[in-house]
C-alpha cells in the first residue's frame, strides 16, 4: 500500500483524470504519417507537448533525433517523413493552440 492517504489519493486521481481527459482530445493533426508519429511519441508523453511547439525544420530534426536517441521507436526509413510532418504541422508562424485549463480560475 502506498502511504498516501486515501483522501489525497482520490483528489489526485480526480486531478489526473481531468487532465488526461482534456489532453487526450488533443490528437495530432491528419497527415500521411500521423499514426506512426502518434504511436512513437505518445508512448512516453502526450500529444499536447508536441502541439504547443512552433519550430523550424532544423529544430524539428534535432528534436526527432534526440527522441530517437532517447528510445522513440522510429524506423530509420520514416525519420525524414517524421521531420517533414512535424515541420509542416507545427511551423514557427502557426498561431498557438487554445489554452487548456482544469479547475476554476479565480476572478478579481
Amino acid at each position, binding site marked *: 500500500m502506498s502511504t498516501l492517504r486515501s483522501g489525497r489519493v482520490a483528489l*489526485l486521481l480526480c486531478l489526473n483524470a481531468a487532465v488526461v481527459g482534456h*489532453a487526450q482530445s488533443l490528437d495530432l493533426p491528419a497527415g500521411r504519417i500521423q499514426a506512426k508519429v502518434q504511436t512513437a511519441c505518445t508512448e*512516453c508523453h502526450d500529444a499536447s507537448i508536441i502541439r504547443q511547439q*512552433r519550430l523550424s525544420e532544423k529544430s524539428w530534426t534535432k528534436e526527432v533525433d534526440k527522441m530517437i536517441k532517447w*528510445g522513440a521507436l522510429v524506423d530509420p526509413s520514416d525519420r525524414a517523413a517524421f521531420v517533414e510532418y512535424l515541420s509542416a504541422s507545427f511551423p514557427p508562424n502557426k498561431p*498557438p493552440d487554445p489554452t487548456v485549463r482544469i479547475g476554476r480560475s479565480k476572478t478579481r
Partner: protein
Amino acid sequence: MIVRSARFLDLEMPQSYFGSWLTSVPHFFVRNHMHEPSTWEAAEWRLNIGGEVQNQLSLSLVDLGKMAPHTVTNTLECAGNGRAFQIPKVPGVQWQRGAVGTARFQGARLRDLLLRAGLKSGGKHVTFRGLDEVPGKVPPFVRSVPIEKAMHEDTLIALRMNGAPLTRHHGYPARALVPGWIGAASCKWLTEIQVSDKEYEGNFMKPGYRMPNEIIVPGGEVNPENTHSITSLGVKSVIAQPTDNSSSSREVTIRGAAWAGEANITRVDISIDSGRSWRPARLAAERARYCWRLWEYVWQAPSAGEYTIMSRATDDQGRTQPQTAAWNPSGYLYNAIDQVKIHVHS
C-alpha cells in the same frame, strides 16, 4: 490551472493567482520531467547519503522528521518560465508567465545532514537523485549543486509546503529546496544524495540547464563547451492584471509580482508610453529573502483607446529587466520587460 502537458504533468498557474503573496498548493505550478513515482512504501522509503563522506547515512522519514526543522519561504521558478515569448521559438514546454510560485517550505537543513555524515575534503558538489520513473532511454533527472550552496543555512530537504506534507506533484515525501535558484535545482521525490568532487555530468546538467557564455544572435548555434550551469534566477516582473488584450475602464489598476532569485527587488516601474517614461509602482509590504514582491500601480487613462502597459523590475544588485531577454536555444531565464496590450473604453 493551465495544462501545458498531462503526461508528463506540467501545470501553469493562471495570471489571476499572482494576487496572493503565498501561492496555495493546488495553484502552485507543477513541472515534471518524467513520470511521477508510481508506488513506494513510506515505511521503507530512505534518503541515502553517500560519496565523499565519513559515514554513509540511510534515513527514514521518521529520522528526517526528528531533525531540527527550518522554514524558508521561497519563490520557485522554472528556468523555462516565459519560454513561449522567445523569438525565434525554441523547443520545450511553452510556459508563459505562471511557472512560478511562492511557498513556505519546511524541513531539515541539508547542511545538518552533511555534517552528520561527515564531509570529506574532496566533497565539492552534492548530487540529488529522485524516484522519477524514467521512460525509454531518457537520461535520469539527476542534478548537482556546488558544496557552498548545499551547505548554506537555507538549503533544505523539505518535507512540508505551506504547513502540510508535500503533495505527490510537488515531491512527496521529500524534495531538495535550493532557494533563489532555478526550480530544476530543487529535485523532487528525493531518495539519494551523493557528495562528489565534481559537478554531475548527466544530461540535465549538460547540455541541459546551461546558458551561453556570450550573447547569441537569436536563432544562432551555441558551442556546448562555451556555456555555464544556470544557478540563481534573474530579475523579473510580470503583469498579472490587466491581462493581455483585455478591456478596462479609464481607471486601470495594474498589479503584478517581481522577483530576483537570491537578490531583493528594490523597485518596479511602469510605462504607458513604450518605455519613454517610467513611474514607480507601489511595492506591497510582504517581503522575505528569496521571495517575490507584489506591486500595484493605479493609472488614469487620459482617453479611451489602445494602450500598452510595461513593467520593469530592479534589484539590489543593480540589475534591471532588459528590453529583450538574452536568447538561448532552450529559452531559459526569459526576463524581458513585461507588457500587455489593453483596450480602454470610455
